[in-house]
């Protein structure tokens, strides 16, 4: 089967080669006219039609307004036209370069966006939703990462940050979660080449570290624009990996005026701790209202400042007084500085841009830092009229140190469960056990409670855990464009994304909670993805029809190799390297896959108001069984510009009201393969402690008949601009059904397997997206614009599997699960609640405690009703102010943070210590009258239901104020030394106007970025506000 295929590809390549050579012959030597079509404001007009009078065919100007046409004689006449512009006729008169100006009326018509495979298209011609964000908007509030910068700027793009501080992971979901395997990440593409954003978090509830995905490596200052392709129709050409949408990043290109432009952008910001759990400030260490120096809880007496025995030395005392700001005081104020210098030069045929970036972030966690150094080079070379070459080379070095350790056994957990009278200075001064140190010279932990998994000294942990990671990333491509004729082009591209990452953990001291310390481990991982592609395009204007035909192919090969080493325990201290360990072990893994694809597409346009796009793609994936590895999927989309059509039909309507109107519809399918090695059962091996090797049975039943996953979607949308562009509206409705997801579903344990790999499920995502814009004030000196993005998505698990009606994403140690239940919304929080009678009264046991439900039930769901943002931009003579509010309505979150703190009497909800009679009825229906203590209630009477919160919020996400020196004045003032000067003050995550969680934030308190984590407020590190200043200087 596969041999056949390879042969076929080879044959096709050979044929193409001959074909090109053949075509190339006759076109050489024809008379060619080139030029640029611009409007009366000097902006190029992409897509302007250039036709030779009398001939039926013509060409369309490219994205820069450039055209190139073969003319039969030197006296031919060119007819240049574009919708909304006056048509012009120009005689060639023997010239080879003719630049044309077409007076225009509405320039918005020619909004250009980047679409799949990097093809620039006029937005009006697209039958699907694409939203783009320009560089100004991206870098306005000084965000350090591209994902931060995208927050709130695209309807239906939901970015959830984990609460793991600087450099933590972020989950980006376009149009809701559709994958039960929690693989909802969109594909990132930089200048047409896939860019790995897989998140290597490696953390889970019992520990680990959370790291941002690869998109962290992008320097926001290098980005020209980002297009978000939301639906399958937009993304179909990217195949398998684009099922969750595509984020297309276009980086800045070089200068075109032959002058070297130098730009410097610098940013400095500080991030103080701003949001953490509300605590009670009255009662200290003890139980049942009595102080006890040995108690682990804060259920003791009122803190009155009296002297109590010091925990580290019975002969000393310390004060029994409240420590209000333990969390604020433990953590640093983080700060970030970033500098970016770019050089842009070259002429319009050979532009280049070189940039250097440096970012340094000092995290909130003591000793935490992240450093990023980047280099980016991009150039275009027009070798001759037949050949263009594009080159990009990018190198990024990202180094993290002392990232926070997460999970149950994290610093933050110990801080917010500690009795309220424990002093940080005491913990810091006595983190090492003085007695052990004196006796044996060994550094061991000391703490206010005997160190154990639940009670640890955060300062000891900080000294103990010493982690660092370094990633070297090389990304780039070489692209050859062969222009056979102005209409026929062949693009050949080879892209590479390579990263090697090294993680190192050193545990410097003996540790009661971890065996074999001191020790270290190191992992070295390399990831390489190669994309080789060709694309043949043919564009032609025939009378009123524009025709674009393309055919292409891609080979994607990816390989990830990792090597892990562990030292085992060190017998000496002070030096840390692998071969010093006494029980060294190592292991390696390799993951490799390849997808071969062939695709074709057609863009057909009629009279600038009706557009039809067709795409077809076939993939062959190495990860699927031979019989199912080939899969085909098509898309079709249609766009109609109502206003232009009305013009063409000479229908009168009020253009002052209906300036622009468009309707669009699309249908698409996208196929998706799976991870490598899912088809075969294998035994993993590792070394046991006695030096023997042991093998482990496979616990997942593999499936040799796996099929590709298929997402089928349709989408309708409409776009309007009213009152001479005063108001804009873009509305989309979509419906996507994802079938045959490859998933490990639970299996019958007694049949020998924990799970089986199967094609299961039918997930339906339905939703609407709306973008609104309004120019409230629009005068020469003063502009005030408002924009809003609103999206509502509902993901439903229509069908799971005949044998499995519930799928669990993960569960907390206490049993709380996040699940997908057949027929329900995806992402439900599932645990024991309060048992209630038919009237809804809580059932109370004879002991006065509320009873739990008999079995776990749905307590909430992570899905919000809608999300969105609201932005205001004002500009007065270069002084600008912008504010971005983001919001979420609905959705639930379980506060593990509060549940843990309430149990030990630390949370604010436990401040009332009076005895209580829980409102409810006994099993026999009579009213409960049994009184219980506050401690008994919070320790034994509450269920998970108690800590479920509405995750709705409204916050001032970004605020920027600044001054952009008007360019002409600046140049005059500085004798053309400065081209641009912009300075701004920015703030982010500033203020929650609405929020229901107890001090913590509903949108930044997760431990990681997966579906499960998003349902749980785990407060890995406290959330911050950021304030900063940014400076942009252009020479």
């Amino acid at each position: 089967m596969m041999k056949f295929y390879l042969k076929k590809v080879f044959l096709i390549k050979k044929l193409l080669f001959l074909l090109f050579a053949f075509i190339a012959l006759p076109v050489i030597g024809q008379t060619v006219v080139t030029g640029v079509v611009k409007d009366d404001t000097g902006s190029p007009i992409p897509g302007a039609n250039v036709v030779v009078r009398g001939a039926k065919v013509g060409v369309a100007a490219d994205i820069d307004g450039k055209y190139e046409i073969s003319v039969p004689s030197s006296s031919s006449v060119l007819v240049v036209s574009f919708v909304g512009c006056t048509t012009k006729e120009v005689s060639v008169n023997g010239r080879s370069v003719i630049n044309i100006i077409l007076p225009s009326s509405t320039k918005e018509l020619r909004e250009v966006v980047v679409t799949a495979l990097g093809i620039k298209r006029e937005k009006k011609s697209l039958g699907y939703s694409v939203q783009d964000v320009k560089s100004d908007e991206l870098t306005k509030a000084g965000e350090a990462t591209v994902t931060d910068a995208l927050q709130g700027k695209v309807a239906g793009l939901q970015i959830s940050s984990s609460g793991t501080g600087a450099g933590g992971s972020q989950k980006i979901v376009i149009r809701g979660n559709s994958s039960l395997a929690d693989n909802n990440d969109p594909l990132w593409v930089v200048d047409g080449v896939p860019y790995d954003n897989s998140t290597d978090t490696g953390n889970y509830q019992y520990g680990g570290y959370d790291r941002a995905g690869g998109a962290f490596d992008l320097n926001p200052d290098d980005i020209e624009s980002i297009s978000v392709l939301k639906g399958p129709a937009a993304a179909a050409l990217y195949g398998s990996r684009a099922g969750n949408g595509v984020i297309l990043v276009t980086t800045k290109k070089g200068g075109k005026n032959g002058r070297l432009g130098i730009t410097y952008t610098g940013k400095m910001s500080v991030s103080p701790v701003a949001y953490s759990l509300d605590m009670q400030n009255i009662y200290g260490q003890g139980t049942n209202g009595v102080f006890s120096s040995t108690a682990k809880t804060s259920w003791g007496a009122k803190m009155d400042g009296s002297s109590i025995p010091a925990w580290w030395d019975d002969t000393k005392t310390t004060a029994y007084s409240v420590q209000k700001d333990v969390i604020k005081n433990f953590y640093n104020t983080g700060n970030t500085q970033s500098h970016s210098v770019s050089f842009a030069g070259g002429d319009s045929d050979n532009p280049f841009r070189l940039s250097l970036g440096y970012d340094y972030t000092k995290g909130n966690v003591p000793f935490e830092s992240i450093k990023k150094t980047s280099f980016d080079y991009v150039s275009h070379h027009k070798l001759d009229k037949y050949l263009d070459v594009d080159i990009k080379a990018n190198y990024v070095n990202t180094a993290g140190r002392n990232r926070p350790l997460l999970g149950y056994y994290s610093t933050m957990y110990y801080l917010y469960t500690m009795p309220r009278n424990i002093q940080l200075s005491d913990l810091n001064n006595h983190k090492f056990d003085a007695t052990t140190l004196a006796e044996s010279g060994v550094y061991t932990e000391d703490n206010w409670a005997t160190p154990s998994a639940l009670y640890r000294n955060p300062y000891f942990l900080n000294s103990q855990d010493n982690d660092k990671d370094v990633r070297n990333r090389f990304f780039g491509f070489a692209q050859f464009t062969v222009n056979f004729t102005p209409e026929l082009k062949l693009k050949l591209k080879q892209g590479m994304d390579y990263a090697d990452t090294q993680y190192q953990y050193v545990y410097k001291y003996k540790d009661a909670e971890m065996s074999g310390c001191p020790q270290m481990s190191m992992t070295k991982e390399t990831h390489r993805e190669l994309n080789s592609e060709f694309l043949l395009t043919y564009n032609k204007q025939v009378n009123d029809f524009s025709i674009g035909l393309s055919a292409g192919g891609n080979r994607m090969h990816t390989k990830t190799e990792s090597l892990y080493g562990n030292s085992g325990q060190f017998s000496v201290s002070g030096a840390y390297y692998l071969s010093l360990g006494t029980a060294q072990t190592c292991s390696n893994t390799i993951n490799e896959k390849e997808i071969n694809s062939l695709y074709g597409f057609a863009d057909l346009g009629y009279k600038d108001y009706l557009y039809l796009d067709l795409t077809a793609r076939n993939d062959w994936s190495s990860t699927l069984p031979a019989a199912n590895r080939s899969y085909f999927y098509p898309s079709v989309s249609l766009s109609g510009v109502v206003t232009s059509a009305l013009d063409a039909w000479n229908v009168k309507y009020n253009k002052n009201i209906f300036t622009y109107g468009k309707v669009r519809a699309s249908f698409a399918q996208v196929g998706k393969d799976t991870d490598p090695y899912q088809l075969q059962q294998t035994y993993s091996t590792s070394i046991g402690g006695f030096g023997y090797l042991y093998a482990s049975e496979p616990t997942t039943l593999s499936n040799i008949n796996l099929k590709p996953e298929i997402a089928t979607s349709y989408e309708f949308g409409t776009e309007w601009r009213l009152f001479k562009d005063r108001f804009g509206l873009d509305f989309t409705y979509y419906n996507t059904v994802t079938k045959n997801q490859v998933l490990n579903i639970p299996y019958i344990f007694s049949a020998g397997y924990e799970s089986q790999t199967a094609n299961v499920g039918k997930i339906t995502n339905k939703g609407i997206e709306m973008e609104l814009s309004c120019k409230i004030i629009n005068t020469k000196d003063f502009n005030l614009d408002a924009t809003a993005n609103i999206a509502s998505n509902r993901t439903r698990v229509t069908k799971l599997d005949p044998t499995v009606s519930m799928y669990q994403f993960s569960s907390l140690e206490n049993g709380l699960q996040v699940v997908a239940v057949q027929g329900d919304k995806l992402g439900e929080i599932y645990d024991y609640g309060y048992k209630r009678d038919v009237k809804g009264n809580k059932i109370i046991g004879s002991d006065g405690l509320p009873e739990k439900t008999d079995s776990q039930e749905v307590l909430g769901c992570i899905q919000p009703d809608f999300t969105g943002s609201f932005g205001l931009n004002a500009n007065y003579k270069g002084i600008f102010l912008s504010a971005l509010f983001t919001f979420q309505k609905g959705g639930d979150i379980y506060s593990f943070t509060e549940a843990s703190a309430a149990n030990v009497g630390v949370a604010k909800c436990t401040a009332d210590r009076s005895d209580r009679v829980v409102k409810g009825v006994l099993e026999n229906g009579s009213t409960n009258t049994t009184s219980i203590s506050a401690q008994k209630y919070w320790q034994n009477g509450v269920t998970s239901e108690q800590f479920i919160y509405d995750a709705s919020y409204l916050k001032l996400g970004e605020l920027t104020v600044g001054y952009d020196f008007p360019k002409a004045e600046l140049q005059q003032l500085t004798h053309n030394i400065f081209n641009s000067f912009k300075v701004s003050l920015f703030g982010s995550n500033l203020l929650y106007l609405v929020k229901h969680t107890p001090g913590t934030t509903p949108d930044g308190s997760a431990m990681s970025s997966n579906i499960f984590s998003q349902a749980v407020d785990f407060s890995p590190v406290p959330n911050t506000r950021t304030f900063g200043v940014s400076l942009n200087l252009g020479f």
Partner: protein
Amino acid sequence: MKRIKVLNIIAIGLMLLEVGCTNGFDSMNTSSTSLTSSSLSAELLFATCVNKGTSADYQRNYSLYDDQYSHYFSNCVQSFMTGNYEYNDSWANSGWEEFYAEREKEYIDIDSICGSNANYTDMKAMNNIWNCFLWQRVTDRWGDVPYVGASKGTAVAYNSQKSIYLDLLSRLSSACTSIGSNSTTQYSPGDDDLLYQGDASKWKKFGYSLMLRMAMRISNVDPTDAKTYAAQAVAGGVFTSNSDNAKVEDDLSGNGYYDYYNFIITDWENATTDKDFMNYMRGGTTSYPRANTLDPRAAYWFTPGNNGYVGFKNGTISSNYPTDFNWSDYAAINSTTKGYFYFLEGASNVSRLYYPVENYAEVLLLEAEAALRGYIGGDAQSLYKAGITASINDVATVSEGSVPGDTIQKYIDGLPSWAGASSNEAKLKLIAVQKWIAVFPNSCEGWSEIRRTGYPDDLTYPDVSSSSVVTDGDWIQRISYPNNEYLYNNKNMPASYQSTSSYYSKREQYGVWWSLCGQDKTLSKGYTATNTFN
């Protein structure tokens, strides 16, 4: 000239495409960093099966259940409600899942590697004996379970505990007979046999000792088979000294295994010593009056807390904790250099930690009961005394210490009088209480024998959670079938567990086949049932 240039460029472009080409498209999807079944060897799996069979996931598999229900250890973490007889599926299903998805499959794979190869006769028998040991634990904890054809990829019916016991006994019989029966050179797993380093003759003794354990377990409910197998076991040759003891050494080198006792109890402070066991260590109780001297084993097993050799009552809810309580008030496991739980991490890797499987003392006490019941010859009383002596000597030896003979004798003399025990029931109580102590910390045996014999009969009842299905006043009798079975294998479950209401209500309070209370019956803390002698 130009034409050549264009053609060259095209050629370069096509060559570039080839850069990404790989030849192994068809073979690419085979992992090169793990084994397939054809490359397995018996010892690779046997090491895993023996090690993990006793230690894997010790906390969820044993510490939260058997360790507490045997009244050896008590829970220290409020949210761990298993001590209050609450069900927690994610913990309870762990032992079940590991057995069926890993241990049983390891057995099947090793058995298939051995096949009918004459060189593998002993290996095949050792594999069978270990498998029988694991199966008994499974059925003792859950009762009727899927047995015939389990772990082979498809769902199978549940078998009655009786049929499982009889099959295990018969398999043990064949396995023990076959060891040493083949004169060809026998394959040996060597050091990968973590129990006896490949000494098949010791496996034979272990096989018969296990047979004796199983036989005595069913003595109340199937005395005929119990007698047959008890007699066969003793005739075949059970353990004859402490050097025969079956135990799996713990690994402390930090390569993925933990010393769970020290971690769970000392370092994580998740568990501590139990009030009941410590009561018996300190001296007599009302129900078991003995001289008020410290058990000679106590100082090896435990270090006293601030309150001396006192344990904490398992299943206490925190609002019932004594004011000013402190875990250090209670006795801890002895991890000092002269302690039974001593361990030293790292380079020296000195380990004295063992996961108990079966010891000589238990065998002697089983024999004492067998003699009492008339299954075998011999004097019950002297076997009983020998059992106590063997246990004390073993604990002392493991702890690198010793107990003088007269100290042992003094301890035995201080015990409730054998002669004064007027009935078989009374004598059985003496044997059972001593066995409960002698098998410590083998909590699977400890809990099973409490359920079978009803002794010790003055154990402390926990604060039962209102969310537990165990009726206030009933003892916990088993572990519930995991939700996984209810959800995905419902039709094969015993009929009385198939409906939602019965699955959620018929749980931990109902006895297994050999329980003193009888199958699917309950036993109250008032101990209404007695053992059957005939």
